[in-house]
């Protein structure tokens, strides 16, 4: 297995400083997985540059040493995309945390890739602007990581995922060359739109070191609604109807009873009611009259579909509490079991109830506990299955249920992932969604940027052909590292 020699290690340390190189086993073990805990591998070395230039110089040394590179932000990803497959180097952006520019007039910000998502919104708040993508992990995840996964978040319903907000970026390629693509100009005017495929490329095309993002004016009025249901099915149907009536809030989220219990029992207690089987958490923003009209219509639909109570608040403290509960829901579920499998699938918004039922049945049949908290307005479901990773049989059952949910989504016209990415978790399942020729076209894109397979190898695109994978029985294609 390739590794760094002493001279190369010294040179790396000279470039990025002592704190920027982690080569001892203890420090490297912290990077053996990301938020997807089922599979692990330790990198040969971890390098944490402070600038684009340092990153480029580090890439040249790692390339000369024959090491492949896994780019990594905060490691909050849930698909195993930011961990090594076997050895290689982690090139992390954790020390690249500067907001380089906030331009109020032209409404953009330029940041280093390691800037934490919520810090960007804080940095532009005084200018009356905000950065729209708001993943639940936004207090920890980085803008570079968001670019890698094309992250969404609750407010993606109205504002879209990361790809709609990236105006430009700086990429370090496998030659260690620095390239700036796009910029504050709103529309690329010649050549191909390289930003399009780079966003969401899961670190497989190069290392993103700087990002220019679009900022939006803060809405003049914001109202948060909480609609309470006795039945999860009815709650799902209400969302489908809101979409069908073309109502346009900024976020529509569903939390089920188990999730509510976990949140209310935690330090993130949000005041969710204990007498509801499911709640709809909705946010509406815009002009005051738009917000009032839309809120009234949304509550009317909720009532029509069986909501037994609906609450409204424009109070910032109340609103923040409601959203803190929602965004902390995954963490709160630590009270239920030591580990949590956070599935991430997408269903057409007309078929939410059907997929939620499939998930419930798959878990019930396998004796698993399921909690639902998801971006209902986008059809992006997160069935969360509690388990204990020390129990190999339970792990097997969890993965089996996960695969059944994915297959049901694909069969219904949905997809494998809405915001967490493919990584290693869903690599083989790509063949549920794409055929060999589709994947060949993706390989062609990968080769154009990375002809030698230097960046994040072994992710997203299955190594074997789909025809071969399809001959394996269901459940057998998911590998579990003991």
């Amino acid at each position, binding site marked *: 297995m390739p590794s760094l020699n002493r001279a190369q290690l010294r040179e790396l340390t000279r470039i990025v400083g002592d704190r920027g190189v982690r080569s001892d086993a203890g420090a490297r073990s912290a990077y053996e997985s990301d938020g997807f805990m089922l599979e692990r591998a330790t990198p040969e070395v971890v390098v944490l540059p402070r600038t684009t230039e340092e990153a480029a110089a580090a890439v040249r040394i790692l390339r000369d040493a024959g090491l492949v590179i896994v780019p990594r932000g905060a490691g909050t990803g849930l698909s195993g995309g930011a961990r090594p497959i076997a050895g290689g180097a982690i090139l992390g952006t954790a020390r690249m945390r500067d907001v380089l520019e906030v331009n109020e007039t032209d409404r953009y910000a330029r940041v280093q890739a390691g800037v934490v998502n919520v810090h960007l919104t804080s940095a532009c708040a005084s200018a009356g602007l905000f950065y729209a993508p708001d993943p639940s992990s936004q207090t920890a995840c980085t803008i570079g990581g968001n670019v890698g996964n094309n992250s969404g978040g609750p407010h993606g319903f109205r504002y879209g995922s990361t790809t709609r907000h990236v105006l430009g970026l700086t990429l370090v390629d496998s030659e260690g060359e620095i390239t700036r693509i796009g910029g504050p100009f709103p529309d690329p005017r010649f050549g191909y739109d390289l930003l399009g495929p780079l966003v969401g490329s899961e670190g497989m095309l190069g290392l993103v070191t700087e990002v220019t993002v679009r900022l939006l004016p803060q809405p003049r009025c914001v109202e948060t609604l909480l609609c309470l249901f006795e039945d999860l099915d009815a709650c799902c149907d209400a969302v489908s109807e809101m979409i069908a009536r073309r109502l346009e809030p900024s976020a529509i989220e569903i939390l089920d009873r188990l999730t509510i219990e976990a949140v209310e029992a935690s330090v993130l207690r949000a005041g969710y009611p204990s007498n509801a089987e499911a709640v709809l958490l909705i946010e509406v923003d815009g*002009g005051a009259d*738009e917000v009032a009209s839309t809120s009234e219509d949304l509550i009317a639909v909720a009532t029509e579909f069986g909501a037994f109570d609906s609450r409204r608040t424009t109070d910032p403290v109340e609103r923040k509490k409601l959203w803190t509960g929602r965004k902390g829901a995954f963490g709160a579920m630590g009270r239920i079991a030591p580990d949590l499998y956070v599935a991430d699938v997408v269903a057409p918004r007309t078929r939410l109830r059907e997929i939620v039922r499939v998930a419930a049945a798959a878990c019930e049949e396998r004796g698993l506990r399921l909690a639902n908290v998801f971006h209902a307005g986008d059809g992006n479901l997160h069935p969360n299955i509690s388990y204990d990773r020390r129990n190999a049989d339970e792990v097997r059952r969890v993965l089996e249920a996960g695969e059944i949910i994915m297959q049901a989504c694909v069969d219904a016209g949905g*997809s494998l992932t809405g915001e967490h990415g*493919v990584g290693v978790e869903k690599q083989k399942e790509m063949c549920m969604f794409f055929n060999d020729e589709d994947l060949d076209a993706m390989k062609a894109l990968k080769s154009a940027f990375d002809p030698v397979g230097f960046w994040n190898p072994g992710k997203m695109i299955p190594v074997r052909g789909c025809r071969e994978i399809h001959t394996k029985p269901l459940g057998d294609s998911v590998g579990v590292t003991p």
Partner: protein
Amino acid sequence: MTTSSFLDTAVEVAEIEIHGTSSPVALPRTEAELMALLADLRRAREAGSDFRAAFLGRGSAIGWCAPSLAGSFSGGSSSGEAANNGRATVWISTRSLVPDGATGIVEYVPGDGTLTAQAGASIETLRAAVREGGHRITPAGPRSGSTLGGILASGISSVDRYAFGPARHHVLGMRIQDASGRGPTRTGGRLVKNVTGFDLHRLHAGARGTLGAILEASLRLAPVPEAEVHVTSTPFSSAAEATAAGLELRASRMLQPRALFVRDRILHLVLGGRARQVHVELTAALEHLDAAAPHHGEDALDRAVDAARRKSALIIATAPSEVMTVVEHIERALPGSAAGLHIEPDAALVEMDSEGLRASLHGLFESVLPALDPSAVHVSLRDPSADFAQLRDVLRDRHVAPRAASEWMRRLQSSFDPAGVLRSPDFPPQEVPAS
């Protein structure tokens, strides 16, 4: 050479009028025919034939978006032989992939707000179909003579980008036929949210068919608003004054327009959304603007699109904070040019039509271009006319692409078209390393 002279595949070839000139265009009727045609062309290229193939829908945007190709038509060639740097051009249209009498709609799900349609589908037909379900396609307009694939491949956006962003943001997925020899490939999906695999559809949107033909596309639709109104100011004394008024409205944040642009010294606003909100915003707008009677109704945005309709010859893209400087330069150096100017302050675009450009070419060379910093202001020419050959050369030298980006683009093209069947995109000149 005619389109069919070296083809084994029996593909219908029709003479189609493009820009007033009759040209032969291959019209495959099935995806299998298109694949076979591309296989023929690949063999012909490998055997040494010197031509390039170009895809089109109905040809409505050829002159607008493909200067290197459209040049052949203005040069008077009837067969396209002069096109593409002296090479013959084999034109292939995707419009006949939609069977006679069919709409080309693969799936319209009103409850999900998504549409999947064949690339050759008429945009008018699609707009009418989704209108019945209370939806709109972004970009608004052009309303006639275009196909869905043509619009997406051309990278055309419209004045509704103020609220909805460029058209490519609304593409959820595509089916593509490239020239590599593999069958049709799929990218993305039909869902409003999806990160499964690389977003290859974003690469094809705006690639002008140089990486393959779009066969099918899925779009996120926008709801038709409850109320909509088109407001037009009375003419300002200059385009700069109208622009300043637009920038002031943008900065005030008191309105949430669907569109905001200046055309011929008149500021246009489209307000849309919930009826109560539109009423409040209209009142505010009329307090700030000396305006003609507003036009209310479902066709308000269409009327604005019609007012903005233009054949842009010169496009100047910059930051919103630079727009005033650009407009003032143009008006100072080119008196009387305001009539041909189209300005979108938020998208930071200033566009000039061919007539205005022709009348002010000298002043543009002497005064305007030297005053605009190439690192902050990007100028591109869309009119293929020989009158602007010198300007074209000057502009090519103003902007360079990073070396690596150029290399990635070239590799992408050779991956999707290894035999060089398809025409080359107009790549910008490559950056020369400093050393």
